[in-house]
């Protein structure tokens, strides 16, 4: 009960200036996180420089919950590379290995077929209706490095959004009631 009274007192005693200062520092933190993210996008040349592995199709190499660092360069796509691609019509990117490459002589355009290491068949079933090959514009980046387990935070927050709300609510309460 004493704790409740204390919290109510501290909410009542907030002055406008202090509140604005805190709001601005919070805004600064969020903005610097955004700046770092955009800078990473510039440096790696990829639209999403970090992705979380969502399925078990690349086990035992990549397990669900690992995060991958991507890099996209103008180098041609070659067999064996692990690429992240988007299929038209689906918004979840897929991380699989390139198993076939056919590169055109004149234009340099390339037909690519991918397959998950742990899958039995290739990815033609995953591509859009009537699509046999991937092309360069489907590919968002090559995986160059990885960290295990760190992506579970994102998976939990996506699959059980209630946890996200609880976390943000608790954070907000902490910011408001802290004395500094």
């Amino acid at each position, binding site marked *: 009960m004493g704790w409740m009274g204390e919290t109510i007192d501290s909410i009542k005693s907030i002055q406008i200036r202090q509140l604005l200062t805190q709001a601005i520092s919070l805004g600064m933190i969020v903005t610097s996180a955004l700046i770092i993210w955009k800078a990473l996008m510039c440096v790696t040349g990829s639209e999403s420089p970090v992705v979380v592995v969502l399925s078990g199709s690349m086990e035992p*190499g990549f397990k669900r919950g690992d995060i991958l660092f991507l890099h996209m360069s103008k180098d041609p796509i070659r*067999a064996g590379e692990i690429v992240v691609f988007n299929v038209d019509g689906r918004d979840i990117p897929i991380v699989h290995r390139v*198993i076939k490459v*056919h590169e055109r002589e004149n234009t340099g355009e390339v037909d690519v077929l991918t397959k998950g290491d742990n899958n039995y068949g290739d990815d033609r079933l995953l591509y859009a209706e009537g699509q046999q090959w991937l092309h360069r514009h489907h590919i968002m980046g090559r995986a160059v490095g990885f*960290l295990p387990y760190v992506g579970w935070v994102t998976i939990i927050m996506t699959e059980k959004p209630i946890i996200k709300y609880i976390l943000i609510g608790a954070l907000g309460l902490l910011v408001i009631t802290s004395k500094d």
Partner: protein
Amino acid sequence: MHSFGYRANALLTFSVTALAFICAISSFSDKFSNQNPSAEIQILNINRLKKQSYGNDEVSLTLDISADLQSLFTWNTKQVFAFVAAEYETSKNSLNQVSLWDVIIPDKEHAKFRIQTSNKYRFIDQGHNLRGREFNLTLHWHVMPKTGKMLADKIIMPGYSLPDAYK
């Protein structure tokens, strides 16, 4: 200054920083390993070279693959993914790479092997360019670490060719 919150925060920050540092160092230590893998591939038999009913050439062959990839394994290695690809050039395509067979090598003991197998994935051309075609067989490997940067390399073995007529 000595509340639980401050102490928990300091502890968490320090442990995350230390963990990130250890991950970076173990990835860096991979640069000092001495790697000299070796491999040899023989084609035992070309089983079929045919034209598919809806157009493209297809080959089925049996390979004898022997390789020693033990020197690629370090303490930071989780697995090595190895695959054999046929690489060739046609008039329409400057490069074709078709993966014929692959394997996941989980540890050093399994990294020295000899296997005779028919191609795991279908060798299909874009067109009718496979008769009499010369091609390279390349053994690629991809070292996937427990944490950090991945490393890929290959051995190219040139000089293989396909028969001049369908069979």
